[in-house]
């Protein structure tokens, strides 16, 4: 009796885990190239492909591959996936840039870029999957140092246990195609806010093609006073902070000053120029108590519909 009950529960749990699918870090594409390595980790089925000079880390899910990270071996300093460039925008918003936390490492291209560009900053990347960290080291030139560290932990558990403050928090945690529900609730964003230094900002990669996007931005804007958006092509990058919204001219001045100081490859002024500000969120706020992420994600909406909730800044 216990045997098949246990088996039935395991099956259900597996079916549930599989059924949780939906958000795409980047929409699925046919995996191309030669398979360099395949790992079945505790959390993901990870495939590393090489196509000529490009190595990609993908998570297999429902027979599709979701690209988490790309590196161009001929130009390893490049941020090959468009949205990743906008993830650097926190530099223009934050009062300081000395301490940066990333949740969700992937191949580590964003933190590697920031680490090279900002010689005085300390960066910690929290990644739940040990195998992802291994593969980032092995194929994606992710190198740890005194100033760049990877920690294997659940992002929320890490923040709960470590109360140090951060100037910039980058949220990029995807399990294959979806963000775990406990990283999308009001309680989570409140926790993140409590770990921000004065003038700190949160930068998040959000996939805009389902109703879940509406709820995610409603939830963010229920916690942070200002939320801005950038069209990272396939994905949207949100920048949230607790101060009043910047005037566009002021933000441009800040971007220019950071740009002059660090000579960033992806010019912050060009990135900031594409800013859109939140007009009125129309989604429902998600909480730890009530976060129907599966249901919301099942309702697709047109990829560009998110723009209706935003407007050009003044």
């Amino acid at each position: 009796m216990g045997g098949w009950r246990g088996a039935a529960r395991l099956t259900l749990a597996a079916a549930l885990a599989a059924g949780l699918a939906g958000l795409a870090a980047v929409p699925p594409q046919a995996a191309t190239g030669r398979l360099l390595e395949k790992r079945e980790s505790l959390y993901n089925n990870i495939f590393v492909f090489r196509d000529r000079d490009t190595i990609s880390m993908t998570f297999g899910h429902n027979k599709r591959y979701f690209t988490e990270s790309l590196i161009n071996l001929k130009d390893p300093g490049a941020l090959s996936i468009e949205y990743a460039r906008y993830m650097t925008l926190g530099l223009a918003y934050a009062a300081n840039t000395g301490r940066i936390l990333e949740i969700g490492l992937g191949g580590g291209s964003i933190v590697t870029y920031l680490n090279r560009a900002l010689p005085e900053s300390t960066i910690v990347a929290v990644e739940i999957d040990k195998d992802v960290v291994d593969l980032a080291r092995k194929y994606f030139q992710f190198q740890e140092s005194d100033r760049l560290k990877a920690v294997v932990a659940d992002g929320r558990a890490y923040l709960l246990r470590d109360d140090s403050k951060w100037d910039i928090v980058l949220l990029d945690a995807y399990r294959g195609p979806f963000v775990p529900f406990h990283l999308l609730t009001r309680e989570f964003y409140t926790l993140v806010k409590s770990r921000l230094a004065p003038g700190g900002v949160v930068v998040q990669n959000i996939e805009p093609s389902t109703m879940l996007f509406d709820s995610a931005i409603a939830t963010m804007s229920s916690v942070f006073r200002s939320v801005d958006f950038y069209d990272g092509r396939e994905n949207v990058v949100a920048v949230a902070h607790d101060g009043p919204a910047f005037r566009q001219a002021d933000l441009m001045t800040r971007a220019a000053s950071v740009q002059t100081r660090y000579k960033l490859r992806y010019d912050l002024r060009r990135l900031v120029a594409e800013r859109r500000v939140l007009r009125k969120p129309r989604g429902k706020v998600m909480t730890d108590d009530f976060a129907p992420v599966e249901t919301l994600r099942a309702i697709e909406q047109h990829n560009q519909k998110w723009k209706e909730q935003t407007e050009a800044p003044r």
Partner: protein
Amino acid sequence: MSSSILRGIMLFTLAIVLGFALMGFEMLASRYLYPYFGGGINTWASLIATVLVALMLGYLLGGALVDRTMSPRLCGFLLMGAGAYLFSIPLWVDPLFGWTLRNVGDGMVGITFGATMLLLLPLTLISVFTPFAVRLLLTSVSFGGRLVGYVYGVSTIGNVLGTLVTVFTLMPLYGSRALTMVFAGIIVLCGLAMVAAHRFLRGSAE
């Protein structure tokens, strides 16, 4: 209808309802655990192991108690205890899990401790019902095998419905705290029904 048939209907109905609440609450438990211990397969492993331990303890305890007492009232009080425990969960779950994460961590020990605090006592008390139902319905040994099969089969139908309906219908509509209260209320009502029907359920028991 003979009273033995009515007795059967009542106990099988309770088996379905309690089976529903038991698995429904297991699914809700994941929502309490994720924010502190992460949403991985390790959380599910601890959750499932804890539920199976609770079932085992409940079956052992229920079997021993029913042979000794033949008391539906006792089973009813135990169910009311399970419901009361569920009612209390939203009061202490966040401080306790926060403490656990900081002091025990989010490894196997931490998650299993969390799952144990959440599930072990109430699910043990709920699964005490199954041996009670079998023994209260058992009038002839020659029918014993089928009876055990029916009781487990029917309560498992409740388990299946509880799992699917909770996840696919209830959780998208209501918050987990509210659903916990509803399940708690249902379990208390089942307990009250057993206390109230004490004489009737004992029936012709020797």
